């Protein structure tokens, strides 16, 4: 039992972080506003093996586990990497070319009944789209979606298309594949949110040390200090749950997979939203400007929270498990 990254895992995370710092720094995010996608940077992610990470070696992948994928997505979240990274990773081994990043795959979360408008992110960049419900996995060609691009999206780095009527699509997986994909997708989304929650904690903390008011850094004031401490607590609690969920995906007998997946998503949803809000508050007026990137993080958190079930759905599921 060891819930810390191994040396190999830490090296992998460091490599992804180095790539992100080089290719997805904040200024380059600004360049991607409205599209969120850049073929060159996408190629860098593919070159790093992000999409092929968990594909079996026999199928040309790196054969890594969910534990490694969780660390990779935590780093992607820290850098707020845009684009259909999650869906393309999920599609590796299912959609030809996804693992190599040659086929860009978008996705549709059809869990929870998925009533309401169907929105596909980054469709302009996609070659294919997969959809996952609890009981099946569907596939479409991107241009078969007959989707309408929307003028504005909440997150400037996550443009969305509206699919007015979902075309039939090819069923490429049944309940078992779907179940595993939903679990993977939930945990990787949570991992991304943990990275995001950590990044805004770092950002707020750096600002609190730098910004002076009343003759001292604002981080010397308990009001600010305690906001920051609560950010640390939320991020660390969520990170713990996400690591445990990753380890349990790799070794389902080592724990209660459903419960830890619920815990990971609940705590990560909470950490991403609350920490990004707190980051804005610590920055004061500057936090509310477009220039300071805190708002990007919060908007992404809002986009991610409802995916694969938000706090409400997962908490309801845990409640049901308590009395069953």
């Amino acid at each position, binding site marked *: 039992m060891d819930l810390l990254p191994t040396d190999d895992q830490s090296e992998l995370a460091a490599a992804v972080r180095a790539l992100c710092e080089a290719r997805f720094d904040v200024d380059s995010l600004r360049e991607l506003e409205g599209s969120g996608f850049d073929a060159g940077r996408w190629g860098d992610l593919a070159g790093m093996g992000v999409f092929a990470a968990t594909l079996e070696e026999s199928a040309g992948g790196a054969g890594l586990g969910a534990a490694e994928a969780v660390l990779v997505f935590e780093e992607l979240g820290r850098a707020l990497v845009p684009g259909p990274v999650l869906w393309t990773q999920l599609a590796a081994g299912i959609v030809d070319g996804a693992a190599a990043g040659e086929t860009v795959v978008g996705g549709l*979360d059809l869990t*929870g*009944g*998925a*009533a*309401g*408008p169907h*929105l596909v*992110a980054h469709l302009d960049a996609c070659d294919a789209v997969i959809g996952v419900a609890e009981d099946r996995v569907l596939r479409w060609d991107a241009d078969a979606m007959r989707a309408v691009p*929307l*003028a*504005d*999206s*909440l*997150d400037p780095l*996550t443009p*969305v298309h*509206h699919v007015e009527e979902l075309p039939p699509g090819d069923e490429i997986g049944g309940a078992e594949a779907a179940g595993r994909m939903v679990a993977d997708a939930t945990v990787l989304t949570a991992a991304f949110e943990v990275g995001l929650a950590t990044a805004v904690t770092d950002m707020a903390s750096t600002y609190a040390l730098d910004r*002076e*008011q*009343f003759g001292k850094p604002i981080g010397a*004031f308990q*009001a*600010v200090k305690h906001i920051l401490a609560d950010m640390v607590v939320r991020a660390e609690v969520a990170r713990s749950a996400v690591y445990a969920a990753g380890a349990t995906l790799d070794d389902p007998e080592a724990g209660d997979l459903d419960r830890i997946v619920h815990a990971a998503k609940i705590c990560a949803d909470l950490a991403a939203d609350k920490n990004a*809000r707190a980051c*804005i*508050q610590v920055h*004061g*007026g500057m*936090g*509310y*400007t*477009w*220039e300071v990137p*805190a*708002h990007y993080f*919060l*908007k992404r958190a*809002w*986009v991610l*929270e*409802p*995916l694969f079930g*938000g706090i*409400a759905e997962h908490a309801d599921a845990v409640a049901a498990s308590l009395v069953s």
Partner: protein
Amino acid sequence: MDLRYSAAEEAFRADLRTWLAATVPDVGPPPPSNDLVARRAYDTAWQAMLFDAGYAGIDWPREYGGRGASPVETLIFHEECARAGAPYVGVNFVGCLHAGPTLIAEGTEAQQARYLPRILRGEELWCQGFSEPQAGSDLASLRTRAERDGDTYVVNGSKIWTSFGEISDQMELLVRTDADAPKHKGITWLVCTMDTPGIEVRPLVAANGSVEFDEVFFDDVRVPVENRVGAENGGWRVAMVTFSFERGSAFVSEMIEVARETAALAELARKVTRRSGTAWDDAALRRDIGRLAAELDALWALVKRNVSEAARTNEPPGVGGSVLKLAFTELNQRLGELTMSVLGRAGAAATDLDGLPLAELTERSVRSLALTIAAGTSQIQRNIVAERILGMPRG
């Protein structure tokens, strides 16, 4: 302790309601929020209509051209205007709510004669030059300096968070005139005309995409000494007069709007489909919305208490304003959170879809983030409440 309005107050309300019913339908829809020139025209036209009808400067004294309404009438005024869907004070808020009242309290007769009528008629637009990049919560540490040169002050430095700076005619400007004095003691309050040479205005884009805020840079800007309000180095006190002017009616328009939005959110929740039914079928979400509506009713009662206090004392309600700001801004942010919860995955779109007003709702949720920061962060407000109401030491 009663909630019934006097016959005179009811008559005031009836007249106003009649006028609003006749007037508002012709005003037309507001322009896009980032078209500042159109917004100025729209809000100014409304200000002129108020002026012609005798409602401009609703709570300004009659001798300064105002209506001289009592605090209760002022409450009624804001309430009825909001209920009628009339334009808000909008781009004229600094003139009507801050600069004007300050000039009434501290200006010379000449200054009053020069500026007040144009504010009331919407002819001149005012902005505020108080905050600086290094002086936010700690406003008194401002550094923009003004040096006396004969009968002018020469101003150098910069300001930030100036609303509508690009389209304004006049600025209420705080400058440092004595660098050696303790920080509150070396500040002076000036009227600065925005077309004076040496002023540069740069818009700041906000997180919701709006361009209402500006940075304003001053490079040897010459302001006549006659534009000084109050004594040299006495500007801090003058600025504080401005801050405490509102006699209990702050947030009234916003509260009525939030009440409307809360009811609309409940209706919206009945349209947002979920696996089995609609978002409104989620009992926990429904309860959260109900509780928010109830707390808003309680804040409305707090406004009435604050107004009642102002009516008795003819003074602002003191820290009652901080209590209200703390509670209302946090409630308003919670409404933003609940809105995103109701929208669920649809919230990723900021374009209207399937009958859901997503552009407005998502922008509203983002906009609410500024409320616990602007005009004194919640942290500063809590200090004020603990120090001024409970007497906690400043330390």
